[in-house]
């Protein structure tokens, strides 16, 4: 590599913190033409998410969702994982930073370590297992978790006594005691900080007795207890005596919303949801009845499908939700815990539980705070990275961006969204150096074996003593020699080691081997490595099959070596049988159209179009109305108080001026064809005379940002009295200094108008914050105004909690009501000769006093719901799904929050779910980043494990069309049979198995290949 002048812009970037946000940011940038250094101070990537058992609100297994991402980041040619490292300093400026990174020794050669675990078994020194939150021990030599990436052990030098036993046990010779700290200087164009969060340590809260009794655990400890790979293997037991609990209490807001004791004035945003999740999962874990009680202040289930989740827990799972404040926890002799709590009414109650879970809040890790100090970026009062609402991922230092929980406490999808947004922002100024630092693997042409008989080579691995120490490897090897088509066999100490790979390459060429079987560990971890070796030897990577004789054999049948040997033979025979039938699957290059269609001219749509344009690609911006700006036109300020109008006019201006943006006003999408990389969309524009003009746009990807609108209330005398207004009307009135606001003496805000109802069972997320902000504004205009906020739960999540605090300090009064008993607003007729002279009267039942309160407000502000815009035809044209509430459905609620299941299509803004303007901007930028994975390339590779139709056998019965979970197969009327676009097929094979005419085959998993394995198993001896 050439030595570059370091003041020049570079196409490399650095991501600090390899949790789910860091991983997402790295993948996005590496796939869009940048070389990524991913730095983490731990021994492996994965962050907090890897410790979780399940994720809300889908109850997906966290490890299942994250591990494919771990593997991808681990093997990416353009991602350099720098584990066990700290960034010491950052010099230079945006575009050309020099980062000094200190790499602390792990004393294990990552390249050599096979993670076999022999060292762990013999290491005599134990230490606290941080991954299991101290519920368990680990050894001084350890791997964080079995799926860790890099998949290699590390020595904890602080615990190690230096006895040298591990070196004696390590046959891979991976131990390197001579390691010393190393310093490297990286030239990077931009930096993304994604250091995540640590979990609040409740030991300081004396009344909760945490640390004084093992049956009081934090929520993260409880995750580990629930986890099948945790200390109790997923059996729900309490730590003290392993009894299965009958009653568990969850205590909310531990270390959150607590200035006095915890010093954390903010809401941690995620605890309500994870507590609900834990109650449900805990109930599923035990066969005996489990009573789950959640002690809380406000239930903050403000995200997509969160309220339904809450309702399900309450109504179907009978979780008890108790609005209260905790007084003390007192451990009892038998391991039970007595909780004293105070109800809303002031009544003190006591109840005994078998176990208590403290829903501990989030806080920035001390190492992250220290790093922020070294980098010189501004932090907020709680030591999180300070950002502006209109630039949600920019830190105070140019060229440094932030995403995930280090920006503020947040859940996984929000973190992932911001990660993509940060990737887009970080690379915006580096567009001209895209693809300059990335590596391309030079590969020989693939040898054509067509017409040749299978010539199979079998490589049996000893894996040190992991396989060879249990099963008889030479016997397996010799057995393989006897199998049909096998022309070469050998066994290796470590088949995966670098030198063995070189040897294999040679032997493949020398002996003309055209199918390879490796009998070793799991294809999940090692198939890509062996496939790479095949490819380097000129073989198509699909000419490969693995027999898993370690993870699924010698490791689980250690006590029966003879059986393990016999089973290994069976597995090798099965693999060889399939290998005889496998064929090369060449990939086809498809050209990509380097432009993006953006539908919707609101903030999200404009930010998306501008983002695409700034990345150097053409954006087509389509708006069906006659003006840009969407809902933001009426908004007065962001929740942090930044004025919206100047931002919006700058944005509109920028969109108009950018040479790469073409705007289509009063235009609708009428027809969409094509697939990822190559869509063709027909637009119809209405001109001034009402004539329609059609335009056909080719584009590589599309972003739908079709927005939302405010619900027009039918309740609370809305429309019948001018002083009853919605939030947006309030904002407009405030901007105009409307007298209805200025002269108000008694203002009442009513929350959840049209939200959290039977008709709309979702929370509109933004309204609590908006009411608080508006109430505070009224108080500044007129300190004497009396304000009531009538609410169900105050959902001021994250730092928005500070508005709630300020509102209470400013004397705003809060009255809670139950959904069954909402406030009633009535009109008292005034002077009949005067218009609008009728007076408002409001009755609300105070929940604490248990009696009605009558108010005579002169201003009633309704926190009206946010509804998605009606776009049925558009969604049908793109074949994208909407949920029952009309919001667009993303590909995966956790890790793909801006992608549609259909490749090449993305979403942003209110069309996805109600959100504040900063969140909309972040999501729009995220969508830009996702499209860059497509349009920044000249071509994409398609093919491999996909379903193909045999036209001769297709009866056009539509079975495949109906069964495909992604709606990919369609009937080509001209060809007269079903077609499955190679570029879109996900490769599950459902269609192949459902097709009555057997007209569909899933490549690499054909009936022939699957049956060959089965036959081989049973036709033994």
């Amino acid at each position, binding site marked *: 590599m050439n030595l570059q002048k370091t003041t020049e812009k570079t196409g490399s970037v650095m991501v600090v913190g390899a949790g789910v946000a860091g991983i997402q940011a790295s993948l996005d940038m590496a796939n869009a033409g940048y070389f990524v250094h991913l730095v983490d101070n731990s021994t492996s990537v994965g962050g907090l998410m890897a410790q979780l058992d399940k994720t809300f609100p889908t109850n997906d297994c966290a490890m299942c969702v994250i591990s494919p991402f771990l593997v991808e980041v681990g093997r990416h040619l353009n991602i350099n994982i720098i584990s066990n490292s700290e960034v010491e300093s950052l010099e230079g400026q945006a575009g050309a930073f020099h980062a000094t990174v200190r790499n602390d020794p792990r004393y294990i050669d990552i390249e050599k370590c096979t993670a076999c675990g022999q060292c762990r*078994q*013999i290491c*005599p*020194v*134990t230490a606290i297992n941080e991954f299991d939150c101290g*519920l*368990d*021990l680990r050894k001084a030599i350890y791997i964080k978790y079995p799926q860790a990436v890099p998949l290699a052990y590390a020595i904890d*030098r602080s615990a190690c*006594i*230096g*006895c*040298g*036993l591990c*070196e004696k046990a390590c046959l891979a010779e991976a131990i390197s*005691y001579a390691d010393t700290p190393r310093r490297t200087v990286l030239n990077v164009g931009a930096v993304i900080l994604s250091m995540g969060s640590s979990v609040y340590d409740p030991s300081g809260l004396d009344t909760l007795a945490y640390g004084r009794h*093992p049956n009081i655990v934090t929520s993260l400890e409880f995750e580990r207890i629930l986890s099948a790979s945790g*200390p*109790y*293997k997923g*059996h729900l*037991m309490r*730590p*003290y*005596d*392993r*009894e*299965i*609990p*009958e009653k568990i209490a969850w205590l909310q807001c531990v270390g959150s919303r607590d200035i006095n004791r915890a010093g954390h004035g903010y809401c941690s945003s995620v605890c309500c949801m994870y507590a609900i999740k834990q109650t449900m999962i805990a109930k599923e874990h035990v066969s*005996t009845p489990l009573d789950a009680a959640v002690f809380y202040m406000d239930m903050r289930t403000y995200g997509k499908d969160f309220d339904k989740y809450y309702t399900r827990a309450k109504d179907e799972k009978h979780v008890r939700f108790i609005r209260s404040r905790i007084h003390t926890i007192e451990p009892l002799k038998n*391991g039970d815990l007595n909780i004293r709590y105070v109800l809303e009414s002031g009544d003190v109650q006591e109840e005994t539980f078998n176990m208590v879970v403290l829903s501990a809040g989030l806080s920035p890790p001390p190492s992250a705070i220290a790093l922020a100090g070294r980098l010189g970026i501004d932090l907020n009062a709680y030591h999180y990275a300070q950002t502006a609402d209109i630039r949600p991922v920019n830190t105070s230092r140019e060229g440094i961006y932030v995403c995930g929980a280090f920006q503020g406490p947040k859940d996984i999808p929000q973190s992932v969204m911001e990660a993509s947004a940060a990737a887009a922002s970080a690379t915006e100024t580096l567009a001209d150096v895209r693809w300059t630092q990335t590596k391309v693997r030079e590969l020989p042409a693939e040898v054509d074996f067509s017409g040749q008989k299978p010539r199979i080579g079998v490589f049996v691995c000893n894996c040190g003593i992991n396989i060879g120490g249990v099963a008889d490897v030479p016997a397996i090897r010799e057995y393989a020699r006897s199998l049909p088509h096998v022309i070469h066999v050998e066994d290796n100490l470590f088949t995966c080691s670098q030198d063995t790979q070189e040897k294999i390459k040679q032997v493949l060429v020398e002996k003309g081997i055209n199918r390879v079987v490796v009998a070793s560990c799991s294809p999940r971890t090692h198939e890509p490595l062996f496939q790479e070796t095949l490819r380097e030897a000129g073989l198509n990577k699909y000419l490969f099959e693995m027999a898993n004789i370690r993870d699924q054999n010698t490791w689980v049948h250690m*006590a029966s070596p003879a059986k393990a040997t016999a089973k290994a033979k069976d597995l090798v025979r099965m693999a060889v049988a399939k290998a005889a039938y496998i064929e090369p699957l060449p990939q086809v290059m498809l050209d990509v159209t380097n432009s993006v269609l953006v539908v919707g001219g609101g903030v999200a749509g404009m930010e998306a179009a501008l983002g695409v344009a700034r990345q150097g690609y053409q954006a087509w911006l389509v708006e069906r109305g006659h003006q840009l700006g969407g809902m933001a036109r009426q908004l007065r300020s962001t929740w942090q108080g930044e004025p919206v109008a100047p931002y919006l006019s700058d944005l509109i201006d920028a969109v108009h001026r950018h040479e790469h943006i073409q705007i289509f006003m009063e235009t609708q999408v009428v027809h969409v064809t094509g697939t990822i990389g190559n869509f063709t969309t027909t637009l119809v524009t209405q001109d001034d005379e009402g004539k329609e003009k059609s335009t056909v746009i080719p584009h590589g990807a599309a972003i739908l940002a079709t927005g939302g609108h405010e619900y027009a209330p039918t309740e609370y005398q809305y429309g019948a009295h001018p002083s009853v207004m919605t939030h947006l009307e309030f904002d407009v009135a405030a901007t105009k200094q409307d007298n209805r606001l200025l002269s108000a003496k008694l203002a009442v805000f009513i929350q959840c108008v049209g939200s959290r109802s039977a008709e709309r069972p979702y929370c509109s997320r933004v309204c609590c914050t908006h009411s608080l902000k508006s109430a505070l504004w009224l108080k500044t205009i007129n300190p004497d105004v009396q304000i009531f906020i009538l609410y169900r739960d105050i959902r001021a999540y994250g730092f928005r909690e500070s508005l709630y605090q300020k509102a209470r300090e400013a004397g705003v009064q809060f009255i809670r009501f139950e959904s069954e008993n909402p406030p009633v607003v009535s009109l008292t007729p005034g002077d009949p000769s005067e218009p609008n002279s009728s007076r408002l009267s409001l009755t609300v039942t105070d929940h604490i006093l248990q009696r009605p309160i009558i108010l005579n407000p002169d201003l009633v502000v309704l926190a009206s719901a946010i509804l998605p815009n009606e776009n049925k035809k558009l969604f049908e044209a793109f074949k994208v799904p909407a949920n029952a509430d009309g919001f667009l459905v993303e590909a995966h609620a956790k890790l793909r929050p801006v992608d549609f299941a259909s490749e090449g299509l993305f979403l942003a803004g209110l069309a996805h779910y109600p959100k504040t303007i900063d969140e909309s901007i972040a999501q729009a930028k995220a969508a830009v980043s996702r499209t860059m994975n497509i349009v920044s390339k000249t071509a994409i590779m398609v093919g491999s494990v996909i379903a193909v139709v045999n036209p001769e056998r297709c009866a056009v019965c539509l079975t495949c069309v109906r069964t495909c979970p992604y709606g990919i197969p369609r009937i080509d009327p001209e060809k007269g049979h079903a077609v499955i676009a190679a570029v879109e097929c996900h490769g599950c094979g459902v269609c192949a198995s459902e097709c009555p005419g057997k007209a569909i085959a899933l490549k690499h998993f054909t009936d022939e290949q699957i049956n060959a394995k089965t036959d081989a198993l049973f036709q033994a001896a």
Partner: protein
Amino acid sequence: METSFQPKILAFLCNWCAYAGADLAGVSRLQYPPNIRVIRTMCSGRVDPLFAIRALKEGFDGVFVGGCHIGDCHYQDGNVYTLKRMDMLARLLDISGIGRKRIRLVWASAAEAQPYADSVTDFTASITASGPLDRSRQTLALAGLSRALATPRLRWLVGIDRQVTERSNVYHEKTDTAHFQRVMQEAVETEYHKAMIQEIISQAPANVRELAEKTGLPVYTVSLRLNDLERNAQAELRGHEGRTPRFAAAA
């Protein structure tokens, strides 16, 4: 005072010093109590702590080990290893409640007949005062001690002590003695606890409270040790009684 108790004491004496010292005591007609039975070893370093436990199990009330003075070992430093092992054994005996008073390590040169005789006299008196070892009440403890002393972990640790703390560990440093002692103490405690639990569950499955009662360990300690055993596939969850899980030795 009960004086009819005549303790049985087993002694391991090294060939070159202590045994020669004992011979000299005989030649010199020094008088000492007759309770001691001697096994000669070439070096006190040959004495495995397991020998001592075996002796206690089989009827001895005390174990006496005699070797050369530090620096005088015929095999250079075999006796230093003896010292380390006896120290570990003493810790284990203390934890088990049997007490380190049941063993004694004495350096006696070939010329030190009198000191040898005095030590034997003194140790015999001490064991007599302690009374007989109540084996019926110490079955579990003795079985646990045997198991613990047979673990590769303790055997490796006691053997590597001097290498890493006195000479050089693999990082070309000396391991901090206090650190090593903490590791050793932790290993000794947990291995003994686990050994007792294994002993019980190898006979029949048991729950945590039963294990706590039988071992005399706190309930939560049992829970933690079980965890350790489960992780190393030495124990497993085997059914429930109501809400109480039972644990058994892994199949």
